[in-house]
């Protein structure tokens, strides 16, 4: 059991193949559903390219799986703030996703100045910043300033929410 797990862990890139297979199947199924009997102009209808892309997705999924099974590995991307020797820290990633989705959930309800501040503070917290006075202040300042600059100065509307109704 543990050996199977270890084997899979070593070859987790097979998951990418699986994603490609799923994508390919979705694209193909969706393409076959398109009715082409009417409205088609020219010899090539709206089906052809999706069928080509879907088939290629399946083909590449197989080739990638073969590559992984033969020992090929995708090289994880490096970067100036990236330490690849450390194991992946999924707690941080999940917290960050939470902060991002919180903004999406709140923006329509409480407006951008508040939801944006939640996003910034949440993300900074997730990434390890623990200044409980400075962080929310920066978040609120950035959020309100961005709102004013975009909404009032640049003419890009953002939802103000109840807070801006008061001010």
């Amino acid at each position, binding site marked *: 059991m543990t050996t199977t797990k270890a084997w899979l862990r070593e070859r987790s890139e097979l*998951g*990418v193949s699986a994603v*490609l297979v799923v*994508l390919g199947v*979705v*694209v193909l199924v*969706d*393409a076959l559903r*398109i*009715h*082409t009997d009417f409205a088609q*102009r*020219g*010899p*090539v*209808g*709206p089906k*052809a*390219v*999706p069928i080509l*892309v879907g088939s290629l*997705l399946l083909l*590449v999924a197989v080739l*990638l799986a073969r*590559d992984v099974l033969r020992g*090929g*590995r*995708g*090289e*994880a991307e490096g*970067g*100036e*703030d*990236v*330490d690849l020797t450390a194991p992946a*820290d999924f707690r*941080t*990633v999940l917290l960050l996703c939470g*902060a*991002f*989705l919180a903004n*999406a959930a709140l*923006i329509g309800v409480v407006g*951008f100045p508040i939801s*944006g501040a939640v*996003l*910034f503070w*949440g*993300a*900074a917290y*997730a*990434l390890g*910043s623990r200044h409980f006075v400075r962080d929310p202040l*920066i978040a609120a300042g950035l959020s309100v300033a961005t709102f004013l600059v*975009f909404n009032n100065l*640049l*003419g*890009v509307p*953002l*939802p103000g929410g109840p807070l801006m109704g008061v001010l």
Partner: protein
Amino acid sequence: MFQQLMDGFATALTPTHLAMAALGVLLGTAIGVLPGIGPAMAVALLLPVTYGLEPTGAFIMFAGIYYGGMFGGSTTSILLNTPGESAAVVAAIDGNPMARKGRGSQALAAAAIGHFIGGIIGTTMLVLLAPTVAKYAVDIGAPDFFAIMVLAFIAVTSVLGASRIRGVASLLIGLTIGLVGLDEMTGQQRLTFGSLHLADGIDVVIVAVALFAVGESLWVAAHLRRTTSEAIPVGRPWLGRADLKRAWKPWLRGPFIGFPFGAIPAGGAEIPTFLSYVAEKRLSKKHRDEFGKGAIEGVAGPEATASASAAGTLVSMLTLGLPTTAVAAVMLAAFQQYGIQPGPLLFQRESSLVWGLIASLFIGLTLLLVLNLPLAPLWAKLLRIPRPYLYAGILFFASVGAYAVNADVFDLLVMFVIGVLGFVMRRYGLPVLPAIIGVILGPAAEQQMRRALQLSDGDLVGLVNTPFAVVVYVIIAVLLFFPLIRKLVRPDKPASPDREKIDV
């Protein structure tokens, strides 16, 4: 043409437009200097700033952002030894040792002036070349365009990156995203799953910001380096007589290496900056042993090359609608945002906009030099930004940008999903650029192919019935079989596991 350029300057030199160019340069440099943010991400993040502006003003600002972002990247390279983008990798080789020896000011000055000279020469070549290319490109038809786009697909997957199969996988993911929405020719829904939000397709800006900004933030979060390297403090950039004497020739040579590479598919700045570095090392007789330890030529040449290559990128972007780099891909998305389709007709239909943009490239470069030399110490301070704030800020502005496109929460969710995809791609070595190129060029390539086949009544010969298309397909064949040819020439190399041929 000269008259049009002068008209362009008249457009660009109004006080409002001048202010926008200055703002663009400052914003572009400030964002580009931030560690972890390359020019493509800088441009993508700053896109929403221009949404409320009229097209001419927006693109004038954009020109400033573009060159500012490029310049900002090299500052990071020199002072932190951590290039924010591939074009600035070479600048770190000698720039950082210079900074560590206390010659940071000179390195920054060599880079700034190199950018200025490279940009001016590159943009001049753009002025001379682009209208001619556009004039010939007007006559090329659907099969030719399709061939060029196939070339872009093949080049981006097989020239760049370590693994061809992973590049192709990335391209196909991009093509799939590009399929979402109504089919332009018949109005049939594809991959919309009945959702009205998806019927208009997924905005390229959202895809770009998701892959570059959200994907990168999540990826960095998983492996955040807890101890960040210290930036080297620096004073006001200046150059002494001895340095000037060493740097002026590399400045002038670089652009002629960079410009042509910028204009070809998958060219970009990586290869030419490296070539320029090697060339300067070869040509330097007195200081050859200094290379790698802080030779000013090794900063001056590649930086001028990178800047000229950025101008070269604009030739194929403006005249053919063909993005050759990630930044160009984002710029193309910006054009589409305004309903403007770059291509051969752009110079006729949007003449004042194009020439205004070109004129503001010259103005932006000049502002860049004037503003950035005195502001360099300030930019250097930006390198010390705490990493939690930096990546929180990236996510924050990515959200602003995605939401501002349509004022729709659905777009934030789409961006999140594609951002997670970007994370997975980084983890498993799938390059991001092919996906972006696929999203942008995929729909256009499909239209051209269908148009070509319509003309030939479904006969596949319709795709290869022009000499131009045939030449392009020969180039594609060479690219495809290059690994095979190399293996025949040097058979002793062990077979790499990713040498699959791709069915086009």
